[in-house]
């Protein structure tokens, strides 16, 4: 299935901060067909470094989408039954307006002047996209990690517009540990002399800092078990700036992933989006999580993974408990996996039957 990235530009969006961004573009992909009743639309939310290319083969680079094992004909999100949409988040750098976009006021990239965006702003832009696509009510909003945070924000911001919500390996607010790892990433970027206070678009850019930030990220996405299995203490000859030398495989892997990330991600987007994740707090803004979900009538399916220490199961359980307190319809299971936080991207087999059963039951009950 070859897919094409599409985009739509709106005149403006008013942000939670009170600032207005105009114009604003959102990049998205769609899979499957919207039915006559417009009742089979599912919005997939990507995680921190993801993009709109969730499924199929991109016509740009021939690569499969980040959740291609879960989205497609006959898969968990079955595109022969459902109309599936995924869009790049506000503040991102894969087609949607973000810090690297041109500020019409100056004719130069926004850079550090890009307004402060929140998860609620990201979701607001997605709601505008749904209006554009003619989708009034979503059958489901689903995503892992930051994608799950956006899905929960949908339940709070637009409770009448989603029939079901699927937060996977996610949380309603970051813990100190999660904020800490994000801060290490941000500081690595800021400490790079090429960061230039965020005005680096005419120079080389903070490639080293951004690569280190990504290396830290990758460590938190894996588990002790998965790293031991994948790398152990094995070594290999690798090209390094000081010539060929022997590196631990884990070192070589992290350097490779760090370097690869630099070629596709913008450092200011890194800062903008991780900040949005850190300040996200559905309980704090609304008194309690239960109060935040007061108007929500959606069904929920929460999933977590045993070895995920970045978004541990207790965070999913907090969401589930708040929903139970509101007597909401909520299903939950902690799935076994050694893959750490990455499990939500890898463990398609574990998730498929569950997600399929849940969506099927939700669709039947409409």
């Amino acid at each position, binding site marked *: 299935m070859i897919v094409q990235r599409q985009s739509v530009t709106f005149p403006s969006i008013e942000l939670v901060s009170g600032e207005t961004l105009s114009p604003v573009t959102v990049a998205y992909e769609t899979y499957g067909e919207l039915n006559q009743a417009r009742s089979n639309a599912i919005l997939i939310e990507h995680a921190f470094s993801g993009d709109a290319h969730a499924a199929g083969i991109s016509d740009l680079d021939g690569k499969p989408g980040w959740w291609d094992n879960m989205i497609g004909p006959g898969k968990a999100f079955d595109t022969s039954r459902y109309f599936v949409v995924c869009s790049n988040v506000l503040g991102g750098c894969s087609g949607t307006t973000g810090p690297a976009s041109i500020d019409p006021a100056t004719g130069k990239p926004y850079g550090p002047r890009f307004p402060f965006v929140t998860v609620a702003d990201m979701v607001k832009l997605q709601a505008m996209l749904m209006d554009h696509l003619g989708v009034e009510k979503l059958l489901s909003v689903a995503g892992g990690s930051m994608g799950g945070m956006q899905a929960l924000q949908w339940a709070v911001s637009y409770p009448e517009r989603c029939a079901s919500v699927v937060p996977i390996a996610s949380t309603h607010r970051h813990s100190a540990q999660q904020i800490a790892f994000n801060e290490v990433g941000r500081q690595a970027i800021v400490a790079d002399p090429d960061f230039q206070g965020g005005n680096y678009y005419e120079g080389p850019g903070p490639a080293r800092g951004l690569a280190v930030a990504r290396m830290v990220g990758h460590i938190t996405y894996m588990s002790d078990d998965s790293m031991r299995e994948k790398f152990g203490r094995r070594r290999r000859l690798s090209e390094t700036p000081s010539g060929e030398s022997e590196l631990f495989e884990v070192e070589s892997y992290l350097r490779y992933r760090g370097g690869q990330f630099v070629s596709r991600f913008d450092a200011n987007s890194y800062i903008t989006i991780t900040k949005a994740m850190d300040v996200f707090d559905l309980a704090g803004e609304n008194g309690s999580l239960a109060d935040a979900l007061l108007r929500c009538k959606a*069904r929920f399916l929460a999933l977590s993974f045993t070895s995920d220490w970045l978004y541990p199961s207790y965070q999913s359980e907090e969401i589930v408990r708040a929903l*139970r*307190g509101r*007597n909401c319809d909520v299903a*939950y*299971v902690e799935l076994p996996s050694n893959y750490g936080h990455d499990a939500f991207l890898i463990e398609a087999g*574990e998730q498929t039957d569950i997600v399929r*059963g849940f969506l*099927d039951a939700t669709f039947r009950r409409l």
Partner: protein
Amino acid sequence: MSTTAEPVTAPERPFVAEVLAREDYQVIGEIVESGSRVLDLGCGEGELMAWLEQSKDCEARGVEISAKKVRVALARGLSIYQGDIDRGLADYPDGAFDYVILSQTLQETHHPREVLLEMLRVGRRAIVAFPNFGHWSARWSLLRTGRAPKTRHLPFEWYNTPNIHFVTIPDFEELLRKEGIRIERSYFLRGPRRISLRPSLFADSAVYLLRRD
């Protein structure tokens, strides 16, 4: 109390007998009124919930501790969460359900009294089914061999049994009296048949419909 021995009534739909192969499920299927909100504690793979949703138009939720069973139930599209019955009810508001069902699991909970009280807080009624540890075969087995009873209904060794509270029919009814819990109906089962003669000796299991006074 049911007073006459009678064969289990014919199922409402052919599907019922299949799903409700367990004798206590048949009784529960009879008790629960159509369109009720039901919470099934220790729901396993959700057979009873699925039947209550399809045949009785109930809104069913379930709690199950085994992740494997929860996965099967979720794949059926049921609303089940993985959790511990001993702790899992605290979050629910009072009177959230018409019925809270605990089938063959009371004896496996760590704090059966607290579980029972919680069931009657979050549910207007509770349905409790448990195996009768006072059945004659258990008594005879203990008397004859001097060893922890092993019977058809209690096939475990003492060191690997999930049953950590041995309860008999008079034991259970005494607890209900102490806590001021009213028995609306009770059923005593021997295999598929309901019995009334000396149930504490002859019933394999008992099913109670309970409410707070």
